C-alpha cells in the first residue's frame, strides 16, 4: 500500500455543501503516481475546498477520497503519514527557528530522533536554507517563508505533496526557483498535487491538469490534450513599418481574419485558416508599401485555453 501504486490520489463523488450552498459537486478523478497534477480553476471554483477535504481540514459531505489507497476519513492517520501539505499561507510558528520548525514537524510525523535531524538537514540544504537555520520564522522574507513551508511538508518523506497556490505573491526569481525544486522533487518520485489559479503555472509545470469551475470538473488531461480537445485557434502576431494598419483595414482586406487586437507595438490576428491569412497579410503589406517588422504564428496561450474551457463549460 505505501508504495502508492496506481492512483496516488483517488476521488469518488466528492461533495461539499456549506450551509446549503454546493461548493464541490460530486467530483471524481485520479492523480497518477509520479505526476505533477495541476488543479486549476478561477477564484471560488472549489479548488481549495477540494484540497482541504482531501487532507482532512474540511469535513466531507459525501463521496470518498483515498491517498495511496488509504481512506482520508476512516484511515486518516495512515493517509496523513503519506502526504505533506503546503497551505496557501505560510503558517509555521513565528518564534521558532527554521530548524526548530522542521524538527517539530518531523517529530509530529513520528520520524525517529537521529533520522529526523538528518532529514531536517537534508531538506534545509535542498531548499538553500541551511545557512539561515537558526533564524526565526518571523524574520524571514515571504519567499524564504514559502520555501520553509514546503520544506516542512517534506521532512517525513511523503509520497504525495499538496501545494495550494505555492508561488502566489512571489517574485519571478523565487517562483522559478520553486518550480525547479518541485520538478526535482517530482523526479525523485514525489507525486505533486498543485492547486493554482495561475494558468501559466499550471500549464508550465503540470503533466496533467484538471479544471474545476463552479464545483465541477470541466476538463481533465495533459496540457497538449486540452489544447487539442478545445482546439483553440493559433494567433498571428504581426508588426509593420512605418505604421500598423488599423483593425478595420486588416478585417476588410485580409482573407479569413476573424478578430484583430492591438497589443503594444504589434497586432494579434485570429483567422479561420492562419496559413492562408499569413500569405494574404504579406500580399496586403506589399500592396500598401508597408514592411513587416515582425511576423510569427504562435499557439494559443494557456490563458486563452483556460478561458475557452471555462467558457464552454458555462
Amino acid at each position: 500500500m505505501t508504495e502508492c501504486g496506481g492512483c496516488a490520489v483517488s476521488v469518488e463523488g466528492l461533495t461539499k455543501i456549506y450551509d446549503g450552498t454546493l461548493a464541490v459537486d460530486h467530483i471524481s478523478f485520479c492523480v497518477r503516481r509520479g505526476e505533477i497534477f495541476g488543479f486549476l480553476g478561477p477564484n471560488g471554483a472549489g479548488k481549495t475546498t477540494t484540497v482541504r477535504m482531501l487532507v482532512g481540514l474540511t469535513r466531507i459531505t459525501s463521496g470518498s477520497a483515498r491517498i495511496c489507497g488509504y481512506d482520508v476519513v476512516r484511515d486518516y492517520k495512515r493517509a496523513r503519514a503519506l502526504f505533506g501539505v503546503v497551505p496557501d499561507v505560510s503558517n509555521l510558528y513565528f518564534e521558532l527557528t527554521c530548524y526548530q520548525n522542521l524538527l517539530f514537524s518531523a517529530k509530529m510525523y513520528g520520524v525517529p530522533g537521529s533520522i529526523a535531524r538528518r532529514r531536517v538537514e537534508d531538506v534545509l540544504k535542498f531548499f538553500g536554507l541551511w545557512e539561515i537555520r537558526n533564524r526565526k520564522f518571523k524574520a524571514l522574507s515571504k519567499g524564504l517563508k514559502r520555501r520553509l513551508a514546503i520544506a516542512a511538508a517534506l521532512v517525513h518523506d511523503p509520497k504525495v505533496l499538496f501545494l495550494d497556490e505555492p508561488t502566489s505573491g512571489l517574485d519571478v526569481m523565487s517562483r522559478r526557483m520553486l518550480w525547479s525544486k518541485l520538478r526535482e522533487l517530482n523526479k525523485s518520485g514525489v507525486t505533486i498535487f498543485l492547486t493554482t489559479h495561475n494558468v501559466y503555472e499550471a500549464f508550465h509545470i503540470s503533466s496533467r491538469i484538471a479544471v474545476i469551475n463552479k464545483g465541477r470538473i470541466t476538463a481533465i488531461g495533459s496540457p497538449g490534450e486540452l489544447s487539442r480537445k478545445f482546439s483553440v485557434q493559433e494567433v498571428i502576431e504581426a508588426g509593420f513599418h512605418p505604421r500598423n494598419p488599423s483593425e478595420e483595414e486588416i478585417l476588410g482586406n485580409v482573407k479569413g481574419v476573424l478578430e484583430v487586437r492591438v497589443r503594444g507595438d504589434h497586432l494579434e490576428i485570429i483567422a479561420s485558416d492562419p496559413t492562408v491569412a499569413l500569405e494574404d497579410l504579406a500580399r496586403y503589406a506589399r500592396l500598401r508599401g508597408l514592411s513587416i517588422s515582425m511576423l510569427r504564428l504562435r499557439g494559443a496561450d494557456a490563458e486563452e485555453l483556460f478561458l475557452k474551457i471555462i467558457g464552454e463549460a458555462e
Partner: protein
Amino acid sequence: MIEEFARSFYIALKDLREYYMKPGSISWGILFPFVFALAFMAKRGGLTEWLAPGMIALALFFGSTSMSAMSIVFERRMGSFERLLLFPVTYVCIALGKSLSSFLLGVISVVPVFLLSLAVLRVPPAHPLLLVVAAVLAAFASSTFGVLLSFLVKEPEQVMVVFNLVRFPMMFLSDIIIPVSSMPHYLIPVVLVQPLTYLTETVRYAYTGTYDILPPTLSFTISLILGIAFLLLASDTIRRSKP
C-alpha cells in the same frame, strides 16, 4: 498510546518555546496569582491558613488556563493551528498537547505562591504528597478547561477579556476566598456546578488536612473526572472546529 503522548509532549514544548514570554501568559498566568496572594498578605488578617490553599489553587487555575488561551486563539487566527490537524495524530493528542503546556505553566506559577505561603504561615503542608497530587489534578483540570474555553474566542485581543469574564466569577463563586459553608444558600448550587470549587477543596485538604464542604475522596475523584471530561470535550471541539 506512548507515541501519541510523546507527540502531545512535542506540542507542549513547542508552545512553551512560542508563548511562555507572551504578556498574557506572564501577567495573568504568573504575576496575577502572586500579586493577589501578596495583597492578601499585606492586608489586615493576612494570608491565613484558610486563604493560603485558596491562593495556591488560584495560581494553579490562572497559570494553567493562561497559556492555552494565548496559544490556541493566536494560532487559530494565524492559521498555524491547522498544522496540528494535518499531522497523523488523534484530536485527543492535540488537546492533550495544548493542555500540557498550560499545565506546565500552572505548575511554574504555583511555586512562588507556595513558597510565600510557607514563609508566612510557617506550617508545612499536612499531606505533602497529596498536595502534589492535588496540584497535578488541579492543573490538569484547569488546563483542559482552558483549552475548551479557548475555542469560544476568535480574536487574540479578546482573549483575556473573555477568559477573565469567566475566571473572575469562578474565583469568587468557589471557596478560594470565602468558605462555601458561609455563603447564602441560594449560591450553593452555582458553587457546586463550577469546577474550581472541587479543585480548591483538593488543595485545601492536602495543605491543611481539613475541608469545607466536600470530603477528600469526593473532591479528588470529581477533579479527576472533570479533567478527563474537559479533555474529551476539548478534543471533540477541535474535531468540530473543522468546517
